[in-house]
């Protein structure tokens, strides 16, 4: 069971939430060609490591937000609101602290 820190409600069990997609996928302008459009619709990064997810707190505040999650170890590295400045991925933060 993941414990997800909702930016409004605090840490709750995964069952209260719904995972939607990889985070920060930008819808392209409709004038782009079929290649870019199908890439937007169907292709995903499937990062093996730290990634940014889009979740919603369905059984709580019902808001959308982003979660930093490690796709191999299931660690949660924090959460942030839509529109906030992107926090660095935990791996980037570690690298900065080391340097």
């Amino acid at each position: 069971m993941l414990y997800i820190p909702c930016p409004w409600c605090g840490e709750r069990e995964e069952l209260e939430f719904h995972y939607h997609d990889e985070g920060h996928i930008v819808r392209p302008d409709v004038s782009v060609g079929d290649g870019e459009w199908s890439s937007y619709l169907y292709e995903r990064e499937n990062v093996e490591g730290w990634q940014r997810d889009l979740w919603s707190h369905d059984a709580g505040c019902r808001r959308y937000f982003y979660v930093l999650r490690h796709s191999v170890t299931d660690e949660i590295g924090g959460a942030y609101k839509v529109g906030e400045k992107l926090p660095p991925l935990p791996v980037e933060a570690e690298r900065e602290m080391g340097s």
Partner: protein
Amino acid sequence: MSGHFSGLRLAYESLRGHTGWGRQWGSSELGDEYDVVIVGGGGHGLATAYYLASECDVGRIAVLEKGWLGGGNTARNTTIVRSNYLWDKSLALYDHAVKMWEGLSRELNYNVMFSQRGVLHVAHDEGDIRLSRRRCNSIRAAGVDSEWLSPEEVKELVPIINLHGRFPIMGGVFQPRGGVARHDAVAWGYARAASGLGVDIIENCEVTGFDVKRGKVVGLETSRGKVKAKKVGLVVAGHSSRLAELAGFRLPLMMNTLQALVSEPVKPMLSTVVMSNGVHGYMSQSDKGELVIGGGTDLPVSYSRRGGEGWFSSTTASIVELFPCIRRMRVLRMWGGTVDVTKDRSPILGKTPVENLYVNCGWGTGGFKATPGSGHLFAHSISRGEMVEKAAPFGMERFREGCLVDEGAASGVAH
């Protein structure tokens, strides 16, 4: 090597203490150069290598496997075989596989324990009935076996099912030719047969890069050194996106965790496979007596091979509603695997932006059933350099062209 398996041989070996069986497949060192390299030693990869060696004249063939043979989704699935899909393209693809399953043990001289005990999809409400009957008719029109059963007929086939519970049974679609097979035997049988035909099978050999010259793949970098290859087939399921990234392109896939569980073993109580798309669950009984239970995937992109607890409670709750007599049974094992899911729930078989690099992936939650057919069609396609007829509609270009083979409704969640 292990030689031909037969009743006579078994009798002979039993008289001398079973000392003469030998290893079932050779372990090879990585050669310098191959005509075809298959990346991924699961069922689909090994089947591809076997049909390349037995039916296509392509020269030297190698299978590279990062871990051990059949240790990925081949070892983790719920072994269901069926071909009752909605669209003609899928029916042709999956029924090709079912026909091959029917002769597979003989073909490989290896008992894959294919048991055609039938697969039943139950319907719970009026909408479910309409969709199921439509699918049933569409399958029959394509010449594949499919029967509509009344609730009474369902009860006769599955005495332990609860017709009048929270999810009432209002009928079901039955495919008698469907069933289950022994997953490990499929990987081992193909490995043994391919190895017998001279295919090099190299385990603990991870692909770390592709040597691409002028848009053409000419070799691979691996944890055991470099190897030249004229053609390469990627058959790596949950690692498809990673390897595609190494080769410089992206695939229309999502990686999800799919879980399954088995109960403690009990005496025979279920003689067919029962699936319910309505409640997201399915159950069969293994030859060992364990009830094999599966359901839908967890939603987040994940490579953890561990799923969430929510899946367990929702799947078992539904299954226990359908089969109240199992509610006090204990769970013996529970596990997860990483499945490569496409948005239209159909596989990807085809060429890639890199010349001579072919891909076979996207089987998502239901690839086991297609193993022989997938390997057979992929082998012939690689050999010809063009996708053969039954595989042609499944190229990744269908996502760009909008020509999807949408099996989301027909395959539902239960695979």
